[in-house]
């Protein structure tokens, strides 16, 4: 009996400690984004789209790295990827400049932003920069890999979908289709009634489309990544970075801006989904526009994150039983999504490494709807504060671990 009690105590204690166990929080570093609009000035609502763009919230899983120029225009009806503009204006060099708060006139730099976003020990970082220790410094390498190299430009080409025009085109197509079908069926059956009935369906369909109260946009999002490797980093730290005014370094930077480049990663096209007008005041077109545009850009960012490894986001597990993670429909999570659970650990140099410990899937019907204005429309799951997951395989999961979506998900 004693043995039983002893065993019981051990099992209970083991479980109690398991319930309470938490890994030490290790903050991961978010990617940084510069977001640009390509505005089709000849299209309906172009001015409204332009007005709302600068008010749109930055996707909350990223750091804002915007430069002062945000809006590009084109009179062309075809989507523009912004590559010409980015190259002509040496945007890559400006993004690097922003990382180091570089003064265009004097060339003075500092590392305040890197320290802030990288959560580094400020005094150690300053000491390292002051001593110009470039090679072999794990903190600086980590900053390069985790922060600067994860700087992205997203060019959002937003075009309005004219529902009315589409409705007319749809109605015409339906009428033609129905007419042909009516003629054929009439010929076969010898009756015109069925043909009339089908035509009626076509008109009803057009009627439904034309009464959609909503604003639809199609957004092409082009993703570029700042190139940052050892060679570029060495060049920058040795020839450009200066804690004090330095005319020579300014001249060198200005004459050699092409040393910094952006790499095209890929693009994503939103599906131009219908946006519910529930929770929206229909008398305020800007509210519908900002809702449609924000959701379309969020959708593209989520799909880019799914498709391109370097743009993937990680998020922390809030509770382990049930497993709840603050990601949801904005990140395009479906019941078929699969995520790996990562355990982060920090080595003695302060660099963070990740190890997969489990695979999880979202619980049916418990996906958080965190899309823009979902709460206003009382969308399903909008007040959940996180998506519930269940474990498919793997070991122990504790709060604070990170999750990352697996590419093989079928959505």
């Amino acid at each position, binding site marked *: 009996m004693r043995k039983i009690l002893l065993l019981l105590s051990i099992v*209970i204690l083991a479980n109690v400690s398991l319930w309470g166990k938490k890994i030490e929080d290790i903050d991961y570093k978010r990617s940084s984004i510069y977001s640009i609009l390509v505005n089709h000035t000849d299209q309906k609502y172009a001015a409204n789209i332009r007005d709302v763009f600068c008010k749109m919230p930055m996707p909350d899983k990223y750091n804002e790295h915007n430069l002062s120029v945000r809006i*590009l225009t084109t009179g062309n009806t075809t989507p523009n990827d912004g590559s010409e503009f980015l190259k002509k204006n040496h945007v890559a060099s400006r993004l690097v400049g922003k990382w180091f708060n570089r003064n265009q006139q004097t060339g003075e730099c500092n590392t305040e932003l890197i320290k802030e976003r990288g959560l580094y020990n400020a005094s150690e970082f300053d000491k390292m920069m002051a001593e110009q220790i470039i090679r072999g410094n794990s903190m600086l390498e980590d900053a390069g890999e985790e922060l600067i190299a994860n700087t992205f430009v997203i060019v959002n080409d937003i075009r309005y979908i004219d529902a009315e025009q589409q409705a007319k085109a749809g109605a015409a197509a339906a009428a033609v289709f129905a007419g042909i079908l009516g003629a054929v069926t009439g010929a076969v059956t010898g009756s015109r009634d069925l043909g009339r009935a089908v035509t009626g369906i076509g008109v009803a369909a057009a009627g439904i489309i034309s009464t959609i109260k909503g604003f639809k946009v199609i957004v092409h999002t082009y993703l570029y990544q700042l190139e940052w490797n050892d060679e570029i980093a060495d060049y920058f730290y040795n020839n450009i970075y200066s804690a004090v005014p330095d005319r020579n370094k300014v001249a060198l930077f200005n004459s050699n801006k092409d040393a910094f480049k952006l790499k095209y990663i890929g693009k994503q096209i939103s599906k131009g989904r219908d946006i519910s007008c529930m929770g929206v*005041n*229909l008398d*305020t077109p800007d509210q519908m526009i900002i809702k449609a545009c924000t959701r379309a850009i969020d959708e593209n960012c989520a799909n880019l994150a799914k498709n391109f490894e370097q743009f993937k986001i990680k998020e922390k597990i809030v509770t382990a039983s049930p497993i709840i993670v603050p990601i949801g429909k904005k990140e395009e999570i479906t019941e078929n999504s699969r995520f790996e659970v990562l355990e982060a650990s920090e080595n003695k140099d302060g660099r963070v490494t990740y190890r997969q410990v489990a695979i999880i899937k979202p*619980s049916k019907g418990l996906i958080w709807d965190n899309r823009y204005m979902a709460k206003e429309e009382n969308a*399903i799951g909008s007040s*959940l504060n996180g998506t519930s997951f269940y474990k498919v395989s793997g070991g122990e999961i504790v709060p604070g671990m990170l999750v990352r979506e697996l590419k093989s998900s079928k959505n």
Partner: protein
Amino acid sequence: MRKRIYIIIITLLAIVHYLNAGLYVDNKGKYGYLDESRAIDIPCKYDYMTEFTEKGVAIVQKRNKWGCIDENGKPVLKLRYLYISNFEDGFAKVSSEDGLGLINEEGEFVLTTQWGLIKPFNKSGIAIVGTKDGEMGVINRKGNIVCGLGKKISYYDSEYQRIDITPNMDTVPGFPEYFYINDSETFYYKAKGKFKYVRRETLRNIIMKAAFNCQGTDAMPTISGWSDFQDGIIKLTATVTVANSSKIGVAIAYYNIKEDKTVELLRFYKYKSEIEKGNTFKGTDIFLSYKFNCGYGCYTYIDQQGNTKSTIIDKYGKRVKYFNSAFGFNKNGYMIVKDSVNGKYGVVNTNFEYVINPEYDDVKLFRSEPVLPPYGKFLAKKDGNWGEIDINGKIMIPFKMKETFYSTADGLVGYSKDGEKFGLMNDNGKLITSCKFKTIYTSLSSKSVCGKLAGIGGKIYAYNLSTGDSTETGYDFFYDVIKAGNDYGGQIFILGTKHNNDSSYALIDGNLNLILDDISKKNDAIAIGQEIREKPFVKMSAIDYKRYKLLKSSAFRKYHTSDVVSESDWDY
């Protein structure tokens, strides 16, 4: 036997993963509820479940259908809804195929699911709702419509940005139980817990008829806003132009909006109601009126002979007293008046008895307040000299000063013995600085002031009142002071024209730290001071400022996709 015990223990531990305040989840992820006393025992059968409300209702979800149960597990709302949000402020939103609805913590429908928009309740207990067709209305917490449908009003979206739709709904500052809708010109108010209303048109017609003997469409009055309520009485001021009759004027009226929503006009006064067109009208310069306090209103006007007159009226609109001039009662029931007989200033109580005799030639109030401040001190002039007294007649600053003024800093009094050099005292007469400033600029806290030192160049000196240190700022002029947060020592000074460079402005905080300099435009300096005043202290360099400006301006500027943008438009 041992094996059985092991199995039981392990099974128990496996089943109950999560035990927290009654809500628990089994190893299949199903939610249930078990409180400590086992009075509530809901087995794990729901895909999702919330805590019980104080009224004993929990939201549950099963197979993607949402509903509510009571503490016995019995359905309060059947599992048939698309979604039910968590309870917030006593209500949860319900979604069905038909639209949005609202339930209370008992699971009862306050609004059935037919709406397109339901905003949260505000502090007054009202919420804005909208139909799926965009018609708007206002409901109370019982779901009753207190403001009819069809009215389109404003609200704040999730980003707290005001969505402007006409008409606007506004609350009266300081009186959350009152709000009005501009376009419908209806004033809503709460009496005995019920919402009632009075139409502004009703008030306008009364004032128009009384003041100008006309009403309806031939008049084009502009009502210059509602005053706040005091003693249940509203003060309404109107500037009126009457078409086809060349009449123009300002009218003021006091109304008592009764609980049965009838309106009683207490008293109105009109100023030169028949001024010919083309005459300069300066009504606001010469017309004063005070909100009700301690049961009395007061209005001051210029009579036909050009003399100032003040009339005191009671709650029934009856004129009860006249003075040459009166400042209106403060909340403590004291009022500065100019005696009708000797033309001197004194202070009366609500019985119109002098508590300070009328023997002063002039008076000045702190911060140009409309009435005597609650603590009852004021500057007064007697026999050609200024001093300060309190409501009990106690002399705080002796009557020896050629000039005095209240600084906007709390309790500080500027004084001059010769009328040329100024110093500062606190309002108990304690010396802060001697008379050495040619000019002292008003400040907002008692920590520091800016001034031009008499006889030392023309530069602005910042004077720290705590330490007595004065610092030359290098700037020639003082322009403004902005009330700011603690990070800025309570204030931000705007100075300008550095070393004869007429395009250089700076912001200096109340602790005399430079926030930002080399700002090229005064308006920019004021704008940036206004913007950062409540934010934590961030020392901003000129380059940061340039970037700040660029981010504000270039971000909204358009550039063609093939443009090479000027370097000056880039921040980096």
